[in-house]
């Protein structure tokens, strides 16, 4: 259009003849149209994800209405849907996390410190690193098989809370390792050098300089890994946790049930008792609210600690 305004017709013809440029307006318009259509189609994919999420939350929320109340949270398990509660499952999940959190944190952060601070760029470090990334992609059900053979049968822990917690901590440790590594890597080197310059030893530097700066990042990763562990079902089912456990666990050697396991068995049993679907939905809401709270805490920590050096 600009061309038409600035050149008269003869000049246009001259230009086209000389430089063999042909301005095909229709083609340009078509290309712009395709671009617009593509943009709409691409954005529809996001709308699709949004709609699925909305339907999922709405469906489960509406199914749990009337079932999710104080009594549901504090009652013991029962075969009668009206009298059933998830007290045992909540306590089971909490006790499970009390195993997972310290074990995962200790081993995961130590591994990250070793890889980032101590290990030289050697074959051993590469080996461990590849190992961790491979572990992260092993299906969770395989960790269940390992837990069943090693913790359950070999160490004779059966399907206790301890066996379940140790199995889950193996599963989520790669997440803690990788996020802690990122956090430690992000600690600027001049802080370390200042510490060494003051005569501090390596361990003192790590303990008093590196870790305090890296701790928000480490915590964020730890919380995310725990929120993964809370929702993980397959390894626990494979450990052979029984379907119906009436009593509330009191020690870490007890058999137990956890929130996701309860959801699993109730969903399977909806064929016989349709009301179980409502119980499963109510339990899912409890689980999701817990997860959202944990993620919110992780986000708050991340935002509050964003320091720039």
């Amino acid at each position, binding site marked *: 259009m600009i061309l038409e305004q600035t050149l008269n017709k003869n000049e246009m013809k001259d230009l086209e003849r000389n430089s063999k440029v042909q301005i095909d307006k229709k083609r340009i318009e078509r*290309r*712009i149209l395709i*671009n617009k259509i*593509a943009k709409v189609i*691409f*954005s*529809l*994919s*996001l709308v699709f*994800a949004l709609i*699925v*999420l909305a339907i999922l939350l709405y469906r*489960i929320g509406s*199914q749990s209405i009337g079932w999710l109340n104080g009594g549901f949270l504090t009652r013991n398990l029962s075969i009668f849907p009206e009298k059933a509660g998830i007290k045992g499952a909540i306590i089971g999940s909490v006790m499970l996390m009390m195993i997972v959190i310290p074990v995962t944190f*200790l*081993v995961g952060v*130590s*591994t990250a*410190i*070793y*890889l980032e601070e*101590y*290990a030289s760029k050697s074959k051993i470090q590469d*080996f*461990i690193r590849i*190992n*961790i990334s*491979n572990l992260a*992609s*092993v*299906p*969770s*059900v*395989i960790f*269940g*098989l*390992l837990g069943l053979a*090693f913790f359950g049968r070999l160490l004779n822990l059966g399907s206790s809370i301890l066996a379940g917690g140790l199995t889950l901590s*193996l599963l989520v*440790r*790669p997440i803690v390792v990788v996020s802690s590594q990122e956090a430690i890597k992000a600690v600027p080197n001049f802080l370390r050098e200042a510490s060494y310059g003051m005569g501090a*030893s*390596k*361990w*003192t530097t790590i303990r008093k300089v590196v870790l305090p700066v890296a701790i928000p990042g480490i915590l964020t990763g730890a919380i995310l890994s725990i929120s993964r562990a809370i*929702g993980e*079902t*397959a390894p626990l*089912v494979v*450990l*052979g946790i029984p*379907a119906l456990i009436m009593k509330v666990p009191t020690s870490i050697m007890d058999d137990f049930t956890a929130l996701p396991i309860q959801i*699993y068995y109730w*969903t399977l049993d*909806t064929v016989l008792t349709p009301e179980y679907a409502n119980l499963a*939905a109510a339990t*899912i809401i409890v*689980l*999701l609210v817990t*997860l959202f709270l944990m993620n919110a805490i992780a986000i708050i920590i991340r935002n509050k600690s964003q320091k720039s050096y």
Partner: protein
Amino acid sequence: MRGQFSSSYVAFINPREKEYKERSEMMESKTTIREQIRTNIGKRKNRTDQVMPKVFLMMASISVITTLGIISTLVFDAAKFFSEVSLVEFFSTELAPLAKDPKFGILPLINGTILSSLIAMMVAIPVGMAAAMYMSEFATAKVRKIVKPIMEILAGIPTIVYGFFAYSFVTPLLMKLIPTLEAKNVLSPGIVMGIMIIPMVASLSEDAMSAVPNALREGAYGLGSTKFEVTTKVVVPSAISGIMASFVLGISRAIGETMIVAIASGSSKNFTFDITQSMQTMTGYIVEFTSGDAGSGTTGYYSLYAVGLLLFIFTFVMNLIARAISKKFREEY
């Protein structure tokens, strides 16, 4: 002079008289400060500084031990299985682990796994790619700020919740469209599994696309390209290695996914290609068999580890492929 003074002064109150004496002697013998520091470091037996690296190395090696543990349990118990069941029977189509005359042909499981993964990828690849292209090339910063958390929420929902959703919502919905659909089938968990994998494919592909240097885009814009043309003809071809790797990782995720198929695709062990029917996947078999009472030491119990080994090999190979792709076709700018 000063050294002498402090030495006599400290000796009066300090039990570590000897150490200070040595120090003051050292000062008198006119060694350099550097040498003094060196001898001091040698003397100071800081135990923690020597022990800590070893403690950390031990912790780090736990991950290696875990891998070895996984491989050795799978291989040893699978070996026990194969001492009783031949490979020919293992790769046949008849599966009846709990029958009086048990049969352990696992082709139905492999078939179920491949079909459900295929359905999942047919959902996850187009939607995930479209989302990635939109997020990386079209979306404004504002849209990105809203959409990223939604994707993260979708990615963070436990798979058991997706399983419940597939069984109690998607299957009844599909039944209205396909009347012959069984209550447990492969189609519905396949679709839901695809939805679960969308965030993974989208974010990995988007990372790959964002890594394409802007100079390439600007070159194409300068030649008069539209955004769509830049995306499909410049950005996607440049980022193809990362995108392909994200697909392969998605497939590996679908193969290993357990709870969705365990709930919604049932436990039929028939060898069929009809996706409206119930089928069992490898993961579903492991879950079904262990949540029932699998007696330790039976052939059925060891069959779990044979299936687990196969599953491990499948996902391991997928990850190797993904790594090889992103290494081989990575273009350096």
